[in-house]
């Protein structure tokens, strides 16, 4: 019925997407019938073509799947069809992609852009920094982005977050839902979706859908747990965690065994990096670390111990906690055989007072660096950072720290 050759990748994608349709009932209701393939195929292609129509006169209409209510095909089917089609046809970017990503292709090349458009990213724990990160990778043209955070939008979230409008603040919707609808507007070619639930409660196979997992605003225990889950999967899943406390920020990266190409003046060299897990990294004895290691690293570890001991949510702190935190500092420093001056009072106080508040320009910086790192990891191009990044607006430095147990030797 469909006149396309059976080996046509578009058609294969079409059948694959159709068989992926979760509920037969929904499919039938909206017109997916066995005997109707030709019409359906034609319709699906029509919708796809409309998505990828070149923009006229350089002005881009907010066109895309979500903006095509005329289609009576289920969105889930269309998304699936499109993703599969990109995967199967795979090798070339569409004219629309080439036009949209022109400037960045000039930075990282076509291959990197292709890999990006096939990558899936999961983000759990949404805040201002993560909003920046999401915006960056959505603009960069990642294949899909899945958002997890069931917390309801509050007025507080407005503070450092451009994805939330004042209207949303009263909408009784979850953060993930609000982020999702805002982010979709940024780039209709990226599949942005919401996953309900709490990431640590998902089983391992859930992770297999993703190439990159980014977590924020969760406890150290959960971070370690999720990091471990990523490690246990067969495929390599890059793990990132990011925290912003006012004008201070920390990014952790675990790329497991990572090989990438490093471009020198005229040759390309393959480089290899071994990353520790978060648990391994922070178990590195403090005495083994170089004297110049940024103090924020130690301060964050003290705060983690404090929060864990008091069973607090990350960032649920105030200046009043300082006396208790100083006790924790002493405990830790004694344990690590280092002088307490390694973790200055002032810094701890700043971080405690900041709590979960984020300084918007610092969100932009952390989100920018994290976005860049994720793009590097997906594309396999450029030196990835290993394995901690710190920014503090107080001194303006953006520092990379390599904290690995291997340093012990």
């Amino acid at each position, binding site marked *: 019925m469909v006149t396309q050759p059976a080996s046509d990748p578009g058609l294969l994608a079409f059948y694959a997407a159709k068989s992926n349709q979760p509920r037969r009932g929904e499919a039938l209701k909206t017109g997916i019938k066995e005997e109707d393939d030709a019409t359906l195929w034609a319709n699906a292609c029509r919708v796809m073509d409309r998505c990828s129509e070149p923009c*006229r006169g350089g002005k881009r209409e907010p066109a895309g799947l979500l903006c095509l209510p005329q289609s009576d095909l289920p969105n889930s089917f269309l998304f699936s069809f499109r993703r599969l089609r990109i995967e199967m046809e795979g090798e070339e970017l569409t004219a629309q992609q080439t036009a949209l990503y022109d400037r960045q292709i000039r930075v990282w090349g076509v291959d990197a852009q292709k890999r990006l458009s096939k990558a899936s990213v999961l983000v759990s724990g949404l805040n201002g920094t993560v909003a920046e990160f999401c915006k960056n990778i959505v*603009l*960069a043209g990642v294949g899909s982005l899945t958002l997890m955070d069931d917390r309801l939008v509050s007025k507080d979230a407005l503070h450092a977050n451009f994805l939330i409008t004042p209207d949303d603040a009263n909408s009784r919707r979850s953060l993930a839902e609000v982020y999702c609808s805002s982010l979709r507007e940024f780039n209709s070619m990226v599949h942005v979706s919401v996953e309900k639930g709490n990431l640590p409660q998902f089983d391992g196979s859930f992770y297999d859908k993703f190439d990159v997992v980014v977590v924020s605003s969760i406890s150290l225990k959960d971070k370690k747990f999720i990091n471990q889950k990523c490690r246990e999967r067969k495929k390599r899943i890059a793990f990132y965690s990011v925290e912003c406390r006012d004008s201070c920020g920390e990014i952790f990266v675990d790329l497991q065994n990572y090989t990438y190409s490093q471009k020198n003046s005229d040759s390309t060299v393959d480089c290899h990096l071994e990353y520790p897990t978060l648990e391994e990294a922070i178990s590195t004895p403090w005495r083994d670390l170089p004297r110049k290691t940024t103090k924020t690293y130690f301060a964050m570890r003290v705060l983690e111990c404090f929060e864990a001991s008091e069973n607090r949510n990350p960032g649920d702190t105030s200046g009043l906690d300082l006396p208790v935190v100083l006790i924790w500092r002493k405990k830790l420093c004694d344990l690590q055989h280092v002088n307490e001056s390694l973790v200055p009072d002032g810094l701890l106080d700043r971080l405690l007072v900041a709590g979960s508040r984020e300084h918007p320009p610092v969100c932009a910086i952390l989100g*920018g*660096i994290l976005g860049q790192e994720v793009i590097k990891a997906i594309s396999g191009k450029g030196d990835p*950072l290993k394995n901690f990044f710190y920014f503090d607006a*107080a001194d303006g430095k953006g520092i990379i720290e390599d904290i690995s147990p291997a340093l012990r030797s």
Partner: protein
Amino acid sequence: MLRGLSKISAWRAIAPQLLEDDIESKRDDKGDKEVKRDDEEGIDHEVEELIIDAGDGVEEAFETSSHVLWALPMHLFMTFHLYLLKIDMDTIEVSNLNRQFLFRQSHVGQSKAKQFSVVLNGLDNLDARRHVNRLCLAAEVPLIESGTTGFLGQVTVHVKGKTECYECQPKPTQWTLPQFWQHVKMDQEKGEDISVRKFEVANAGAWRRELALKAIPVLLLHFVHSVVWAKDLLFAKLFGDRNQDNDLNVRSSDVDGSKTTENVFELSPDEDPISYGQRIYDHVFGYNIELALANEETWRNRRKPKAIHIKDVLSEISFQQNGALENCTNEGTSISAMSTLDLKNPQDVWSLEDNSKVFLEALRLFITKREKEIGSLTFDKDDQLAVEFVTAAANIRASSFGIPMHSFFETKGIAGNIVHAVATTNAIIAGLIVIEAIKVLQNDFRSYRMTYCLEHPSKKLLLMPVEPFEANKSCYVCSETPLLLEINTQTSKLCDFVEKIVRNKLGMNLPLIMNGSNLIFEAGDDLEEDVAANYMQNLNKVLAELPSPVTSGTVLTVEDLQQELTCNINIKHREEFDEEKEPDGMVLSGWLERAKDDQLLSNGQSTLLGTKRKISEAQESSENLARPFSETNAANQEIPQQIDDNNDDDEDMVMLDGPPEASKKKRFK
């Protein structure tokens, strides 16, 4: 790049609290300038900011500023008036930045009132940056300057009396195209290769362009020459203003005698477009090259190009196919030779045959479909057909010279001076801008930092803050130090001085030149006729023969009222100039403390030509160490060296391991 968003929805997404009801009602569209304003009256701290913003493409420019926009108000705990000046042009022209943006219109005689608390720049070219710098100095408004290319970026703070101004360190001079070809010609006569550096300076529409170029391998830089030839000479000759002096003659200077064949480019009324195309093809790729080859002296030390004729590339059958395409041309706005020839992937490098087909087809399409535009076309990177033609022509020429050919996509980037841009760098730079803006608004000048965003970390730093330099005491822009000009007053005309020194070097747009109390020149449209005529006469006079003669010892005062900049120039007569090292026939000095830097940077065009320094050597210059990522070297990953601060505990500053001079000027008062 807020793709797929209308301006307003972008605002909504980015700056929610700016979009309280009143903002949209106050939005006011004035032609291509859009001024947005957020007013909340009656608040204690009133801060006003200006974001001047016009990058390569509006959306891109909008990116950085939009970050700034949402981050700023949320954190300042003050309300303020925010003006976003967005100019819908590819390149911002100085003429758009008139003083009204920085000065409130005030009554005559009344002292100027400053309108803004801080200016955040996101400009894309040197001229406009210099201009805004001067406006800011005059109005004593702090300036935060920024720029990005690829993964690199920088933010610098310029506050009068506190830090250096944007121009305290000289920027490379931009050459005009004729100047460039003149140098190429001189090089060729000497049998030397076209210097890469020279080209960069010549072609730099913006300093970022220069950076972008450097990231391209050397071979491609030679391809760049081919693109410039195709775009600025051939394309302009065929489709541009015919009356305008075209540099194809200059190009042909290595092809003696092509001037006599001027009418080759005329399309005779009864000629069909395909044969016309073949004739042009054979002329520029065949005949001209053969002529060049005839001069054996030229080619003694280098690879000879080979002449290419259409009959050698396309067989007769192909000709017919090509002719037959006449019938299947698509109509409408998207006229494209690539689509008629079914060349789909812009990333592909076409064969010589394909390039030749595109050349002929594009030329034919211009003649048949866009006839009316011929004679007035200027190259535009968004003009599909124009880029196709330039790609084909550049590739055929490259092939003739044995240079690798390039894809449509790559050629478009080169021809269109497309700046590499990624959202992540823009986000980081926007964040850094806001952090500095907050310090400036709080007058926390001890904390001001210049920050460099690096691609590869240097001493663990990916974001490197550097304490701002103090002002260069010899800076002619922010200090009143006179300059010294060595010039042959017996042979140089006033117009040479105005063009080469006042406009090119000093960057003045509306200059007024005085010798003592005698006005000898003034630019402007509103001059009385007789006055203007008088100035015209003066322009053509030799300096020593002006009504008030300019000779050794004369002090000229040059002023730009719009920029509120005045500069005194001591004139020193000199008979001889080295044609190679000092092609201007005049040397301006006194602007830099250190003579050796002067050689490399201050006098861009004269010294770059003379000193055959390699880029790697240039990198070692102390200037580059002292000014990490200054406009000349960012893409080379030149990064400043940190002094190992052994007492690390309280040392928050990055120390520069520069020469003593550099360190000395590091701290500011």
